[in-house]
């Protein structure tokens, strides 16, 4: 699980071009949206595509994303339970 969290942090930094943020600066329970990392709706779409492409998880209801992308902790748990890749 900790490997997956590390992997997710790396992917988020690279794919969302968060070049000023280091992996160590993202805590497992930091909110990804709003006051935390400050991600926005375009980032949410990027994350939905990432789930599909890298982990074989298709989100049919975009509202699900709100819960799944709450933090690295929540995201990693969801991926671990639902991944097909």
């Amino acid at each position, binding site marked *: 699980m900790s490997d997956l969290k590390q992997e997710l942090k790396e992917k988020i930094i690279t794919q*969302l071009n*968060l*070049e000023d943020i280091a992996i160590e600066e993202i805590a497992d329970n930091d909110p990804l949206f709003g006051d935390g990392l*400050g991600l926005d709706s375009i980032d949410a779409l*990027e994350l939905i*595509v990432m789930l599909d492409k890298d982990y074989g998880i298709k989100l049919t209801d975009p509202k699900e994303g709100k819960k799944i992308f709450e933090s690295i902790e929540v995201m990693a748990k969801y991926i671990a339970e639902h991944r097909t890749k």
Partner: protein
Amino acid sequence: MEKVYINSIGSISAQKTFDNNDFLEEITPYEDTVISAIEPNYKDFIPPAAARRMAKGIKMGVVASKIALEEAHLTDIDAIITGTGMGCVRDSEKFVTAILDNNEQFLTPTSFIQSTHNTVAGQIALGIGCKGYNFTYVHSSISFESALMDALMQLECREAENILVGGVDESGEHTNAIHKLIKHIKPEKVHSNKLLHSNTVGAVFGEGANFFVLSNNKQEFSYAQVLDVKTYNTLAKPELMAVLKAFLKENELSEADIDVLISGNNGDIDYDDYYLDLTNGPFKNTQQVYYKHLSGEFNTASAFGFWLGAKILKTQHTPSAITLNTFRANKIESILLYNQYRGKNHSFTLLRRC
């Protein structure tokens, strides 16, 4: 009709031009087939959260426009008009590559959103909260001149007072590879000093963003007056002289009234003849300068020539790195810019000291 002035400038090019206090005091020489823009520290101009989705062309355009607005002491503007030949080509390449690599699946939105040609003008407007006229001309190597023409007409007719006009193009890896394949880019590396003597086909490609605040209000810090601009998509070589004469006549000028000719030579043996007709013909005894050995060739490279003209008129100084012949005008009052690319999309632009 109102007169139109260049009130400020902002340039990012393959030379260190983003500091308006400098005027090519330090030249960066190159020996390559493609040269890149020297970038300022973008963080000094764009908040990191806004910059993270911007490709190089957008950053260059946004920063060049900020420099121009700051120099003009303006925080808002009546209109934003840009010219670009290839638009945000890096994000276009990224998006198309993703389509191919992922078999039309898993397409992410960012590169698609940022790949449109009017992204730069849009981002500038978003940055300063400008809800005015926002237009982008995509007309190959007369893209900048088309933007300029639009601004001139609006300012001459007093439809606007201050307009931000600019030309921006970024270099894309895949696009350059294709241009190399079809020999639009020179096959061999050429030193900047030897560009016009390369005797080979193609050009050394470059990139850059050059922005200007044009206004019908002359300020004490104004650079020059823009007299006129005219473009021609096609122009056979035998017609060039007649067209030039007519253009000058429309502005009540003749060749003898031009103090400096800014020529867009790019060292392409197949198409530099157009320029040679002017430099060896009616402007043989006129001071001549060139610039594509410093900026590289790109669809809006002529905006760098425009930047050069504005600087020369304001400072009355011609840096030695751009001289094409030995003539020196005592006083520089009128400048003619001539540009074309591969024998097409010709433009004449007239600037006057103010």
